[in-house]
C-alpha cells in the first residue's frame, strides 16, 4: 500500500524553501513538490540526485555533429560535388571551413531538441497525458508539498502549519 501523504500549500517560494529545509531537517520524506515556476535551489534543498540531462545533452550534441558531417560529406562531396566560389569540393577536409557553421548549428539543434524531448519523457509528459498535479492552483500561484506521513500525524500537521503552510490537506481516515 502506498504511504499516505499530507498536502501542504504555500503561497511564497521563500516560505516554501525554508519549509522544505525544515521538513528535511526533521527527517520527513518529501514525495514531491509542485510549483508554478522553477524555484532556484529547490532541488538541492529537497536532496534530489544531480540531474543527468547534461550528459544526454553532450551525447545528443555528438550525434548532431556526426549527422552533420556524414550528411554534408554525402551531399557536398560524394553525391554532387560542385565548384562554389573557386573552391571545388574535392574532399571534406579541404572544404571543411565552409561546413563549420552547419556542423555547429546541427550540434546545437540536436542537443537542444532531443534534450527537451528527453526531459518531457523522463517527466512522464507526453501528448494527451492527464495532468498529475493534485491541485490546479499549483499552475497559478500556489506551491504544494507532498509529505509522507510518519507515525505521528498530529505532529506533522502542526509542523506544516508552523512552517507557514496556508492549507494542509489531510486524507480521510479509512
Amino acid at each position, binding site marked *: 500500500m502506498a504511504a499516505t501523504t499530507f498536502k501542504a500549500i504555500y503561497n511564497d517560494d521563500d516560505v516554501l524553501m525554508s519549509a522544505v529545509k525544515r521538513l528535511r531537517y526533521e527527517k520527513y520524506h518529501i514525495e514531491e513538490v509542485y510549483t508554478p515556476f522553477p524555484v532556484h535551489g529547490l532541488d538541492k534543498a529537497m536532496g534530489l540526485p544531480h540531474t543527468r540531462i547534461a550528459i544526454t545533452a553532450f551525447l545528443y550534441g555528438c550525434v548532431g555533429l556526426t549527422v552533420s558531417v556524414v550528411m554534408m560529406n554525402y551531399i557536398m562531396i560524394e553525391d554532387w*560535388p*560542385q565548384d562554389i*566560389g573557386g573552391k*571545388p569540393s574535392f574532399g571534406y577536409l*579541404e572544404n571543411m*571551413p*565552409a561546413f563549420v557553421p552547419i556542423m555547429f548549428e546541427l550540434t546545437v539543434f540536436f542537443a537542444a531538441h532531443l534534450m527537451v524531448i528527453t526531459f518531457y519523457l523522463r517527466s512522464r509528459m507526453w501528448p494527451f497525458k492527464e495532468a498529475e498535479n493534485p491541485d490546479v492552483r499549483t499552475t497559478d500561484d500556489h506551491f504544494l508539498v507532498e509529505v509522507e506521513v510518519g507515525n505521528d500525524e498530529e505532529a506533522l500537521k502542526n509542523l506544516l502549519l508552523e512552517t507557514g503552510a496556508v492549507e494542509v490537506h489531510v486524507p480521510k481516515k479509512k
Partner: protein
Amino acid sequence: MYTFSNRLRLGSYIAMAVGLICLLTGFLTAPSNVEEAKAIVASSHGDDHGGAHGEAGSHSTEGYGGTVTASDHGESHNGEPTNATSDTMKSEHVVSHENTTAQGENHAVEGEQEYMVSSGHQQSHTEGANHGETHGSVSGHGGSHGEEAHGGTHDASHDEHLLHQLQNRPWAALYVAAFFFFMIALGVLAFYAIQRAAQAGWSPLLFRVMEGITAYLVPGGIVVFVILALSVMHLNHMFVWMDADVVAHDKLLQGKAGYLNPIFFLLRAAIFLGGWIFYREYSRSLSLAQDQSDDNSYFVKNFRWSAAFLVFYLVTESMMSWDWIMSLDPHWFSTLFGWYVFASMFVSGITTIAIITIYLKSKGYLEEVNDSHIHDLAKFMFGISIFWTYLWFAQFMLIWYANVPEEVTYYVARFQDYKLPFFGMLVLNFIFPLLVLMNSDYKRVNWFVIMTGLIVLFGHYLDVFNMVMPATVGDQWHIGLPEIGGILFFGGLFVFWVFNALTKVPLQPKRNPFIEESRQFHY
C-alpha cells in the same frame, strides 16, 4: 593583510634573472652581418629547423620573400593552380585533383611559381594568387625561405632580409612576452570595469585581487611603450612601415602614412596607456576610499567612471591592436582584429584572476571566497574560450572564402611555416577548454581549474606568438632561449609586481554595498 611569501618572491627574482640572461644571450647571439646570418641558417638547417616546421610542402616556397621586388605589389600572380582547379568540371574532379597534387609535388622540388600546389591541400586555389604581392613589397618580412633558396638563386636583398629576420628574433621574443603579460593586466582591467559598471553582486570579494593584477599595467605598459619607441628609433626591423626606404617604394604604405607614421603612432600609444593607467589608479583610489566612507558616494562615482572607461577602452583597445600588432603586416587588415585580440586578453585575464584567487585561498587568505566564485570564473574561462574561437573562425572563414590575395597572405604564411603553433593553439585554446571545462563539477575543483588555466594561458601566449612572429621573423622562428627568457623575465616581473600590490591593502573590501551578496553567493 597578505604577506608576500619569501619563496614566491625569491622565485620571481630567479625567474627575472634567468630570463634576463636568456634574453641577453638572444640579443648577443643575433647576427650582426649577412655572413653570420647565413652561417646560422646553414647550421640549423640540418636539425631543429627541419623538425620544427618540416611538414611536407612548407619548404617549397622558393624565394617569394626575396626575389619579388618591391615594385611588384600591384599585380597578383594568378598562377597555374588557380586555373587548374577552378576550371575543372564535375566529372573530372577526382582526376584533376590527383593531377594537381602530383604537379605540386614535382614543382615543389623545382621551386618555381607553382609552389602553392604542394601545400595546397587546405588552400590550393587560394594560395597561388597572392604570394608575390604583400611579402615582396613589404621588403619580404614574413616571407619564408625554401631550402632551395639557400642553395641556388641568392641575391643581396634576400640575404639582407634574412639578416633582418634573425636580428628581429630576440626583439620579437621580447615583444611577445612583454605584450602577453601586459595584455593579461589589461584584460583584467576590462573585466573589473565590467563588474563595476554592471554593479555585479557576486564579484566584490575578488576586487582586490583584480586591482592587484591591474597594478602591473604601469610597469608592463611602460615596457611595451619603450619597445615601441625603440622600434621607432630603428633599433629593430619589426615594424616595416617605420622604414622610410620601404615606404618610399610602396604605394599602399604611402597611402596609410597619415595614420601609420612614427610620431602619431607613439602619440596614440601614449594616449591609450595614459587613459588605461589613469582609470586603473583612479578606480583603485575610489575603491579604497569606499572602504573608509560612510555612504555609497564613492561606489557610485566608481560605477560612472567604469562605464565611461569601457567606452574609451573598447575604442582604444581596438586601435591598439591595429597599431601594435596588425601593423606588423602593414598591407593586411581585418576589421574584427580588435575583438579577436580582446577575446584573447579577456580570457587570459579571467584565467589569471582564477589562478591567483585559488593560490591565495590555498594559503589561507580570502576565506570568504567559495567554490561558487571559482565556478563562475571557470564558466567565464569556458565561455570566453568559445568566444575567442568564434572570432578566430569568423576572421579565418571570411578570408578563406573570399580568397582576396592581399588578405589570404596572412594565413598562408601561418599555414606554411607555423603549422605546429598555429594549429596547436587552436587545440589548446578551443578543443581543450571545451572538453575539459564543459562539466559543471570540474569547474569547482580548484586544482583542476589551475591546471586548465595554465594550459589556456600557454595557448594564448602562442596566440600572440602567431600574431607577431610571422611578420617579424618569418620562417626563422623557434621557441628557444629568447622566447623562454622573455616568458620567464616578464612572468617573474608580473608575479613580483602583482603580489607586491596585493600586500598593500586587506584582501577583502569592507564597505562595498554588495559585499554581503558576494559573501553569500552560491550556485
